[in-house]
């Protein structure tokens, strides 16, 4: 007797009707089964198959980039995506905007007791599909279960490791007066897709989240050799907040042109209806690029040629400003500050 139960005698997880219970986080056989039948089955790759406490990875050489992101979005499933693919895209993007090729991901799950296994499987399969499509394997992970009421279904933390491309130096502190600000596409899609499914606010609009992995678009942009100073994905706090971060880091002023900023009419209308400003609404598949003026048109062309940058636009310029304000020329003909997001426009957006 070696303590193992013969495979044929173990009942599989009841994915259809089963729910997460405390034993799934106990470290015992129930946990092993959950990991094996649900997580490992979906994420399967050679590093995960090692089955050890950590993944043993070949060294990449060069400079490593590492980023981590916790995901607590509510609702878990929303038009255009779910917490699973979002948690893969979000971390890949954080690594990629550093000018790095994302290589590996880790995933850590906090599950609430009572969470339906069917929903968990749907989320895990969505993660697996996103990781496979991006070509970035999930190589290690962790699962914890907390009592009912101590979490909200599932929280997912992913960490990404990548290797920075040679000669690429991207930082929010690199921007100089005269540089040009580019945007890869329309603002506010993710935030408004979430908003449209909030329990107390459901409204019928054809808005889908823009959640997507941007590393291929970024690789194409870097290949042009354009003098890119900084890349950022405007997630929480939206375009306005991200631009303020950059203005502060680089000690410059930024002037954007309202009419140049792409916003889908349906998103603009939903924002108007709810009293929100699309410049402050989260995106999950868009990037801001700031580059030397001479390279802007060339970079724009490459962005527009990529499926994730079809609506790319030049939206403004950096200038010298001791106050590091972000300002906007309004479509109305006036000028105004575009300030940091104050308070909470929309909780638990990602």
């Amino acid at each position, binding site marked *: 007797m070696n303590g193992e139960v013969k495979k044929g005698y173990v009942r599989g997880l009841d994915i259809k009707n089963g729910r997460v219970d405390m034993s799934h986080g106990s470290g015992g056989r129930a946990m092993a089964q959950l990991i094996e039948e649900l997580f490992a089955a979906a994420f399967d790759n050679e590093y995960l198959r090692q089955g050890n406490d950590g993944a043993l990875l070949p060294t990449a050489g060069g400079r490593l980039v590492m980023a981590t992101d916790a995901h607590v979005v509510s609702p878990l499933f929303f038009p255009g995506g779910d917490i699973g693919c979002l948690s893969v895209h979000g971390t890949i993007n954080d690594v990629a905007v550093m000018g790095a090729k994302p290589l590996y991901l880790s995933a850590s799950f906090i599950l609430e007791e009572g969470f339906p296994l069917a929903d968990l499987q749907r989320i895990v399969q969505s993660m697996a599909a996103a990781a496979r499509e991006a070509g970035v394997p999930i190589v290690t992970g962790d699962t914890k279960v907390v009592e009912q009421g101590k979490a909200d279904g599932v929280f997912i933390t992913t960490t990404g490791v990548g290797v920075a491309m040679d000669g690429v130096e991207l930082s929010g502190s690199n921007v100089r007066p005269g540089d040009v600000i580019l945007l890869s596409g329309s603002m506010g899609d993710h935030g408004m897709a979430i908003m449209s499914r909030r329990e107390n*606010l459901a409204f019928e609009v054809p808005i889908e989240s823009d959640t997507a992995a941007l590393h291929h678009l970024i690789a194409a942009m870097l290949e042009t050799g354009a003098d890119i100073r900084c890349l950022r994905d405007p997630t929480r706090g939206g375009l306005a907040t991200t631009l303020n971060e950059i203005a502060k880091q680089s000690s410059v002023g930024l002037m954007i042109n309202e009419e140049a900023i792409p916003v889908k009419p349906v998103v603009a*209308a939903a924002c108007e209806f709810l009293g929100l400003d699309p410049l402050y609404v989260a995106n999950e598949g868009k990037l801001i690029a700031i580059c030397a003026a001479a390279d802007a048109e060339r970079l724009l062309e490459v962005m527009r040629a990529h499926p994730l940058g079809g609506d790319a636009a030049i939206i403004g310029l950096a200038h010298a400003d001791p*106050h590091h304000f972000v*300002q906007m020329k309004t479509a109305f*003909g006036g*000028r*105004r*500050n575009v300030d940091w997001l*104050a308070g909470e426009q929309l909780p638990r957006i990602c």
Partner: protein
Amino acid sequence: MKYIDEFRDGELAKNIVANILREAESGKRYSFMEFCGGHTHAISRYGIADLLPANVRMIHGPGCPVCVLPIGRVDQAIRLALERKVIVCTYADTLRVPASDNLSLMRAKARGGDVRMIYSPQDALKTARDNPQREVVFFAIGFETTTPPTALIIKQARDEGIANFSVLCNHVLTPAAITHILQSPEVRQYGTVPLDGFIGPAHVSVVIGSQPYEHFAHEYRKPVVIAGFEPLDVLQAILMLIRQINEGRAEVENEFTRAVTREGNLKAQAMVSEVLELRRSFEWRGLGEVPYSALKIRPAYVLYDAETRYGIGYKPVADNKACECGAILRGVKKPQDCKVFGTVCTPENPLGSCMVSSEGACAAHYSYGRFRETV
């Protein structure tokens, strides 16, 4: 966006501005108060002040609902959440209004109070239906625009026999506040607030109509132009006010004809007067006690009156001494005249209520217009 973009058209704006520049006589003073926070927001957001000549000045009025909510009223809601353990439902801006003991409803939530942000009063009633074992209070604030929906849910609660629901009613009245400003010593005696006319409220007037303002035009000889909240509405209203002054008229004119009639929404008015009645007096932040300026729940609906139900008395609390919200709400001072503006008091950490809502004079100036002081 159809029916929105038309009222934000930059080319049309240029035409109106050209008329304003031509018709505003250089020797004359044109000081207009926009009563509503909605107008304050539009003026700041679209940079309208930049488009006006120097002798046409806009003074921000007290028409921002969370700005005029006194500390003592927020304290009541916080006590209900923390001491009585009720679910307090309210609008988003209300959550951040600073109250006593360095608290706000949002901070009360962090201390274990069950405080929920809602978009519609119907959601408060739904919360009560969904939580029959809990007591639910809707912390109702706002001018005449938000009053009918409050009256409606009180009526619905009674019709449906929802016993775990009540309303902490803080609805206030626009005409009473305008009267108060017109009678204030700053306007009548000292002339520290030069006031030559009003831009009348948009949404409030949809409910109450244009008729209530006729009194101000006739009695106080102040022109009133009711205007929508879009930037072109505001510019057009300014032009109409300039014309009234040039022609020596003091009338109520309606720029917002696409939504406002003289009588207003009679059905909504009837609903409100069935459920709510005048308070003898009500404290406003900045204005102090204003007679007959707010509404309370009628005795017939007393079961749904949170003030009575929980026996919470009202205790006035003085504003922070450094805060100039009071003077700003009366039009006596500008946000940048306040020592704590942009230093101790910011949208992240508001000391005074005018820094909370995007309709507040201080928050609007901080968020949209700060670059003006630096050039």
